[in-house]
């Protein structure tokens, strides 16, 4: 379904697993595609529109191997077609410097991972209901 695809950029397989579990167990609308690092994220987005669905929202971790979340974000905002894609930063960093920098680079939201399972489920539900269902997407997502 167009626009309901979520690109999850996350290197920690446990986090990927727990988020996928939350979406599956609570029958959320979003459809998660996970990539393990920044390079893979850019590769996916470069292929998007041609062979793969364009995500309705990108869930972006900041500390990633090879290319950091910040680098992926600033790359994305320079792409003529892809730059309007909504990006939700999902990270363990509460550092105010990170928060400010993410917004300066064009993040649409900044969420902090919680260490308990219920918190993860809450995040999954909120992202699904707000960013996947309620939020209107830019036209590129419908293509």
């Amino acid at each position, binding site marked *: 379904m167009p626009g309901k695809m979520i690109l999850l950029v996350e290197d*920690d397989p*446990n*986090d990927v*697993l*727990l988020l996928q*579990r939350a979406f599956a*167990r609570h029958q959320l609308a979003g459809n998660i595609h996970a990539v393990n690092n920044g390079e893979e994220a850019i590769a996916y987005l470069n292929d998007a529109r041609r062979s793969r669905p364009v995500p309705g929202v990108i869930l972006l971790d*900041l*500390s990633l191997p090879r290319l950091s979340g910040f680098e992926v974000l600033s790359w994305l905002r320079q792409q003529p077609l892809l730059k309007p894609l909504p990006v939700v930063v999902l*990270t*363990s*960093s*509460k*550092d105010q410097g990170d928060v400010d920098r993410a917004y300066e680079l064009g993040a649409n939201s900044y969420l902090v*991972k*919680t*260490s*308990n*399972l*219920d918190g*993860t489920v809450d995040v999954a539900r909120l992202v699904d209901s707000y960013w996947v269902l309620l939020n209107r997407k830019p036209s590129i997502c419908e293509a």
Partner: protein
Amino acid sequence: MLLPRGIVSANLLLMVLIVLLAVNALISYHSARTVIANENRVSHTYEVLGDIEAMFSSVKDAQRGARGFVLIPQEQFLAPFDRAKSEYLRRFEVLRELMADNPRQQSRLAAFNPEVVEYLNYLDREVVTRRMHGFQAAEALIVNGYTTDRIDELGKMIDEMEGEERSLLAYRLAQTRRSIRTAAINFAVANAVAIALLVVAFILIVRGARHRQRYAVELEDRVQQRTAELEEANTALKAFTYSVSHDLRAPLRGMSGLGKALLEDYADRLDDMGRRYVTGIVGAARKMDALVDGLLLFSRVTRTKIDLQPVDLTAAVHEARGQLAADLESQNAHISIREPLPWVMAQRNVLVQVIANLVSNAVKFRHQGVAPQVTIWAEKPVEKVRLVVKDNGIGIAPEHQERIFGAFERLHATESFEGSGLGLAIVRAGLERMGGKVGVNSELGRGSEFWLELPMAKEHRYAG
């Protein structure tokens, strides 16, 4: 500290210079006195010479006066004769005094005087003879009386005396010239040496100043280097804590999340023992997470840049209570704040953290089954504000009251009271960074009164 050698020797040199100038002044004074004394002796000699001349003239004047009367025997012509006689006596007395320092001249004068007295008596006789016996008798007395040899004799004696004085004069003039020359040489040498020393001292001081300047530049370089090193270390530490907060916590999140998921999703396939094991894993991960949280907080409090500003304690206490709201509610705690609280000099976020830790402790260490009662108020010793957080908890034995402020100090097993063991260490570190103090009054079983002290904010004095 390295003192430039030039400065030491310059100081020594200046001291020598002062001594030299003093000696110079002394010698100059002495030379001047010698010159003046010699000048006085020279003028004394001139005076003596003048007096000898005048004394001899008075004798000649007496002769001329007496002979004048012989020629024209009028009484008024005797006045010069009498004047010359008394003039001779006066001059003689003056000379005797002037020659008191010279025995040779004195004896000459002593030999000279009777001759003159005798001659003056003879002149008297001429006058008397002229008056009594007329011109002829007086003329006979003149012709047969004193020969010119005797007058010449007197002249010779005068010449001797004058000769003596003249040779004295020559000697004294030479001496004066010598003393003036000596004084001039003294002046010149002493001043030349003083100027030379001054120049050397000046050079040494200038060199010392240059040396010090180099030293100051060197010091500044060293300080800059240290600062750079510190900044580097600080950056490294920052990177480390950042890495800890991300990388160290990710596995913990995985452990507790997956454990919980296992408990929820496979509940029907786990027996009691299996559930207990998984619960243990989840609990351990959570404790580790709390520890990492505490460490990050501790490092932030000890590392953060402190900028003291006036802070409203009332607002800070409310904010701390707000942060703990969920915890306080679940523990059914009652917090009473005696408002208004004064303003203090502090860093707001650190102060809130410190108060939150104290309130959290006050609620945490409670008697089983007793609702926590916490009272917060302020006292105001001079220039300081003391905030007291009093609880009705389990209290602290006196022997433990100092230990509890150390990092990782715990008095209780983690099963009874959860925590990182860093709460009070953060309180103490935070207060020390802000120039404050923390302490506790407590009795085992009777609750505790934790207090913190901070400087009062000057522009917001406590009105209450």
